[in-house]
């Protein structure tokens, strides 16, 4: 029975793409998302101990109960976030995920897709990243890297003094860390709204989806 299968079929089966996004991306996405939420809630707790702007975060939105608890959560989640980040960045670079899926599209494609998104008509095919996604994901990756780097620079202004210096010194680095957090929260709002508008993407980020047949050639 097996002999009846042609070599052609075997090879076509071999190149058949798996579920997308890949399991590595899905797992690191959710570990990263959870640890990022913990970082934000505990970061707001730490911020409240000595606010740099004339407001405080409402206690119900903070994590840890007091400064010591906030710091404990912040540093615990930091290692988880960094581990997920290293795995994701390594995978993204080696697998071609960044080059293939996240490389930002030209301004015309961005304009077209933003217009479609604003009319709630953004096309979305499994395995294909549209211009809005490419822009947002590349942007938030850069912002997340800057958040981690500025955070490390205010945590270790002596041992990582060069990094603190790059961010303009302790006080400025602290404000940059806060500004980057704000951008991440802004991204989260847009990201969650878009994901809810196209619920199959949310499903796909959990279970993965098979790309439609037509797009299979372009995937490889």
């Amino acid at each position, binding site marked *: 029975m097996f002999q009846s299968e042609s070599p052609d079929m075997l090879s076509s089966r071999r190149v058949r793409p798996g579920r997308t996004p890949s399991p590595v991306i899905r797992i690191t996405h959710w570990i990263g998302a959870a640890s990022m939420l913990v970082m934000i809630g505990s970061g707001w707790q730490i911020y409240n101990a000595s606010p740099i702007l004339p407001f405080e975060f409402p206690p119900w939105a903070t994590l840890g109960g007091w400064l010591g*608890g906030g710091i404990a959560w912040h540093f615990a989640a930091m290692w988880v976030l960094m581990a997920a980040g290293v795995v994701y960045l390594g995978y993204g670079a080696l697998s071609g995920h960044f080059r293939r899926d996240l490389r930002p599209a030209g301004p015309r494609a961005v304009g077209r897709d933003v217009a479609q998104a604003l009319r709630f008509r953004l096309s979305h095919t499994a395995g294909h990243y549209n211009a809005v996604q490419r822009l947002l994901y590349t942007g938030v990756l850069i912002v997340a890297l800057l958040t981690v780097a500025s955070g490390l620079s205010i945590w270790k202004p*002596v041992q990582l003094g060069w990094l603190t210096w790059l961010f303009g010194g302790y*006080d400025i680095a602290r404000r940059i860390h806060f500004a980057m957090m704000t951008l991440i929260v802004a991204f989260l709002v847009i990201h969650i709204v878009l994901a809810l508008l196209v619920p199959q993407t949310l499903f796909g980020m959990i279970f993965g989806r098979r790309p439609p047949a037509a797009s299979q050639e372009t995937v490889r």
Partner: protein
Amino acid sequence: MSRARPDRAAIAPELRRIERRLMLKGSLSLGGLSMLSGCALDDEPSVERALAVMSRFTDRMQALLFSRQRLAREFDASQITQPFPFNAYYDEDEVRTVDPARWRLEVGGLVSDRRPWSLAQFRALPQKRQITRHICVEGWSAIGDWSGVPLSIFLHHVGADLRAKYVNFRCFDDYSTSIDMATALHPQTIMALDYGDHALPSAYGAPMKVRIPTKLGYKNPKYLSSIEVTNRFPGGYWEDQGYNWFGGS
């Protein structure tokens, strides 16, 4: 409603344990609870244990990152924060003072000479002056001008076992903290006797403060009363309540 009166002595350790936990959790917020996603209060000791394990991991990573050669940045006199803020676990009007002439530093633990030290003995040793940034765990920072005896010089004088793990500080305002030996031997770790051109004022920890620019503010004890070299983990006032022990900058 009648209730059996428990034997106080028998339940004392348990009471202390509960008390400590209540203090840690006293202000646990709704947000905190909801973030634990359905984690009930009686599940919390496990969360707390997990956080403590992570905090010890963070301690180890900080020890690896620490270099005795890497120096905290030093500033110009013009950059000193005026006035340098008072900070303690109590208000400034509760500051305790001692007669500097009668003050003695108790020396204990793994040292060959346990005789107490007077201020005059410290004044006779080489002094080091440095203008460095004090960074509080709360996030604010201030630049100050401290001078005093490098702790490493003192440790050599009392014949301390420099392979011991910890140096523990106790203070007469009932504060305490402890540091790793590598930080104790760092060239910028000093037993400060002066602030600016004058003897340390009472608000800043008279007669002696340990100034460690490679550590956060709560690892810089004021009102020093004793120093101990030990291999037994000593903890500290804030550390026992959940602050990260290493607290390095």
